[in-house]
């Protein structure tokens, strides 16, 4: 079975985001970019499936600017076999919407004849939490989102999902789309020899047009603003002082 893992290049999760003064967006010039943390988990899961003999090949795909090459190289260094970069933007500030990404990924699935997709649950830049579900709709496949445990069992996957009340286990027919939640696994670091080896692994470059997908956004960004900020209040010296303050405020 061939496993496809879509990986997104996003601002590193440790970077403090700054909104541009003109309200046109978030400043991404000269900030550290990394693989979306959920996608590292997805890549790790695919590698574990391959190690367990449940997958033969792992293809990682990124849609966006040329620089996403670095993200794909990271995935290859972790252990993916092959990469496809779909160039769909020149400006790092241009985000491709989940619907367009899903359409491109559908094109890749058709061309590659993939049997399973493991995506991240959510991209930590746009916080959409949508691409996997949209791809499942477009392929007509079943979906198992927010996975914390995956077990491939013949022609189905048994997936435990993190839901509002606790955990839900479902069985989804293959081919299917799974999206990875935080507790699915702990992703490995790429070793130096593997980083060197990854430079020689195949990385194919495509465009959105190769898949016949129009990436024109459906959502026009009118403006981007800073959220209402909170200021630090006061420090209290003791538990008694804390209780007194909260009583005074009517909070308890």
């Amino acid at each position, binding site marked *: 079975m061939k496993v496809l893992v879509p990986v997104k290049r996003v601002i590193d999760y440790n970077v403090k985001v700054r*909104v541009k003064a003109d309200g046109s967006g978030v400043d991404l010039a000269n900030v550290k970019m990394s693989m979306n943390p959920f996608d590292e988990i997805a890549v790790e899961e695919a590698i574990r499936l391959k190690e367990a003999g449940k997958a033969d090949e792992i293809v990682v795909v990124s849609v966006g600017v040329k620089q996403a090459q670095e993200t794909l190289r990271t995935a290859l260094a972790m252990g993916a076999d092959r990469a496809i970069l779909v160039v769909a933007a020149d400006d790092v500030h241009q985000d491709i919407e989940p619907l367009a990404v899903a359409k491109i990924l559908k094109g890749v699935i058709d061309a590659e004849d993939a049997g399973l997709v493991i995506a991240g649950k959510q991209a930590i*830049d746009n916080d959409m939490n949508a691409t996997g579900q949209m791809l499942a709709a477009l392929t007509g496949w079943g979906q198992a989102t927010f996975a914390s445990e995956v077990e491939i069992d013949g022609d189905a996957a048994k997936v435990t999902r993190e839901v509002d009340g606790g955990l839900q286990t479902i069985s989804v027919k293959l081919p299917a789309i799974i999206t990875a939640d935080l507790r699915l696994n702990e992703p490995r670091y790429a070793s130096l020899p593997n980083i060197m080896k990854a430079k020689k692994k195949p990385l194919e470059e495509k465009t959105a047009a190769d898949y016949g997908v129009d990436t024109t956004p459906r959502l026009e960004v009118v403006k981007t603003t800073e959220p209402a900020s909170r200021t630090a209040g006061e420090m209290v010296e003791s538990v008694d002082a804390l209780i007194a303050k909260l009583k005074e405020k009517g909070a308890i």
Partner: protein
Amino acid sequence: MAVLLLAEVSGGALALDATAKAVTAGKALGDVTVLVAGPSAAGDEAAKIDGVSKVLVADDALYANGLAEPVSDLIVSLAGDYEHIIAPSTASAKNILPRVAALLDVMVLSDVTAIVDGATFERPIYAGNAIQTVKSSDAKKVLTVRTSTFDAAGEGGSAAVDTVAAAADPALSSHVEDKVAASDRPELTSAGIIVSGGRGLGSEENFALIEGLADKLNAAVGASRAAVDSGYAPNDLQVGQTGKVVAPDLYIAVGISGAIQHLAGMKDSKIIVAINKDEEAPIFQVADYGLVADLFDAIPELTEKL
């Protein structure tokens, strides 16, 4: 303009609070029809929410576990009459609505925090470090709304309840089991007070300190990702960018450093209290009241004195 609102059904009953909050958002968009993919008793409950014009009930075993594929097909089969399809931003709706949107060839708008007009919405991005205003050019708008920013619609409605036929079974997935943590405590997303514990608690046993304080205050219990990852607390208690977003009257963060991903889930709380032994902890920058103390001294004392 007509709005189709997917009711939140959990454990076979209507999740009233989440649904009623979405109704408030829905009313700003038009005439609200609530769809209950679940038992008819849940439909009767939904009919009582103030501002609901009509309730559609699809009571079929196919929908008993909220599987995304059949529920999405049901919504799409009804979508023709509506310009907006909305739901509260629950784990269930976040699983279903993007699928619906793609089936309709439109974008989804996740976690909407404000409705500017019928096509223009505000939503947080980058863990709430920026707020984006976006205008949709799609004919239909599919959105989930953040329950922490909309007040629940009251009761007193008496909408007509119609039944709708189930759509065909796509037979793509099936339910195996639920592991739901039963608790007598208030629910995280609707509680007035939340006591949240982090890595500072050090173990699952010690996490009982958080529960003890919560019980004293009749509060819900929350946790940081580190506390959940370490097994001190179950996953459904995680507050943050990728967990639950809460805005109680009082949020008490204990042994939590205040990473941006955690702040994303609680910084709209009315009063924030932080208890941490490190005076440099970033959580103090958003706290109304900060106490620098060892939690193993402070929490038992606080619990006792309340």
